[in-house]
């Protein structure tokens, strides 16, 4: 592999794993295709080729490159192929699990759970105080796990990337057995 391609792969890797916040203050998950093309001043075909090479290179490290659509744009991110600890605290994980359980139990295509129901369960059930709940919710939002849509909560890309569908369903089942 030539030095220029090697360096390009290194830079793409660094770009995809950089922590940066979007204008609304929410953590961005990866980089958009548009930004990669603009930053590298390269053609789409070249970018495709580089991403393909990067995908091959990192797979032996237990990492995978994936592409996802968000607000009509293609984004790229790298995630672990194996289960690994995330940077959430225990209480944040629990709240995220409850949110996932609520959203997964909705049969409609519009996957949003009313915030009031989740708050009633957690604050009303005395699992968390109102202050704790609001703080955790804010952290989850800022970390890119959930987003608020009026009075509802919906998934943000990070939840969908880090937790596959079968994992979310399992969490839904377990949550119904543990949290009342």
């Amino acid at each position, binding site marked *: 592999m030539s030095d220029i391609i090697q*360096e390009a792969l290194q830079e793409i890797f660094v770009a995809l*794993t950089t*922590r*940066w916040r979007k204008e609304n203050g929410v953590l961005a*998950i990866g980089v958009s295709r548009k930004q990669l093309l603009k930053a590298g001043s390269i053609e789409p075909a070249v970018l495709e080729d580089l991403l393909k090479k990067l995908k091959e290179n990192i797979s032996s490290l237990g990492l995978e490159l994936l592409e996802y659509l968000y607000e009509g744009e293609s984004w790229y991110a790298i995630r672990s192929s194996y289960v690994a600890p*995330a940077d959430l605290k225990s209480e944040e994980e*629990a709240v995220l699990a409850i949110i996932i359980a609520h959203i997964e139990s909705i049969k409609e295509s519009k996957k949003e759970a009313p915030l009031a129901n989740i708050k009633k369960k957690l604050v009303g059930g005395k699992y968390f105080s109102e202050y704790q709940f609001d703080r955790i919710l804010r952290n989850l939002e800022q970390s890119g796990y959930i987003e608020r849509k009026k009075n509802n909560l919906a998934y943000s890309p990070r939840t969908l990337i880090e937790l*596959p569908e079968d994992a979310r369903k399992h969490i839904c089942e377990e*949550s119904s057995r*543990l949290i009342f």
Partner: protein
Amino acid sequence: MKIENKSNIEEILMELFFKFRDAYIKREYLSIEEREKDRKKLNELYQSFETMHQKILDSKCYLELGKIQQEQTNRFLADDIHPQQRVEMLAYILRSLMHPVLFIHGKTTLFSSALEEKKNQAGSIEILPSEEGNNQNIQQPEECHPVSFGAEDMAKLTQGIKNLIQQYKAFPKWQKKMDLHQAELLSQMVANGELEIVFPTKKKELSGVSTSIILKETVCQT
């Protein structure tokens, strides 16, 4: 009369079915007495079933009743666990299923304006120069290289052993000169056919035995 009875049975079954289903969906609590009473009613109705539709409704009732039973049992068992502990358990379940996104730059973040367009740069990584004045004071650290043990080194060792054996022809003599590592290596050389040591013995049980293990044991015992 028959038709009336039939519709009565079906009404009762439908009523029970919707009662159980709503209770399950809304997660309402039904006491054991009430559930047993309903189950007894279902049991009594069973003898009167005539059509497949009634039997299907009966099965559906039992299914919903079973779901309520399962949920209330789970709740009963979970009540024994402190709520904080249940929260921790749920957190653990989520943690054990996560495939996290990779961030290798720690907790601090850049603002989006910090990611500027790449300008026309030469294809090389620029190494920032160190501060002036430090270069003179910093001594070059000693470099360590791993020691490799190649075929040549092995050949030297094996030749050394051969020389030792040839020098002291009698077994007790070179046995005393050899240490355990040399004995180990000698055993391996004999095992792979590089050397053959003929050791006459009066012990009948060792007759015909050709192995390096005995040699090592003999060496170790002395």
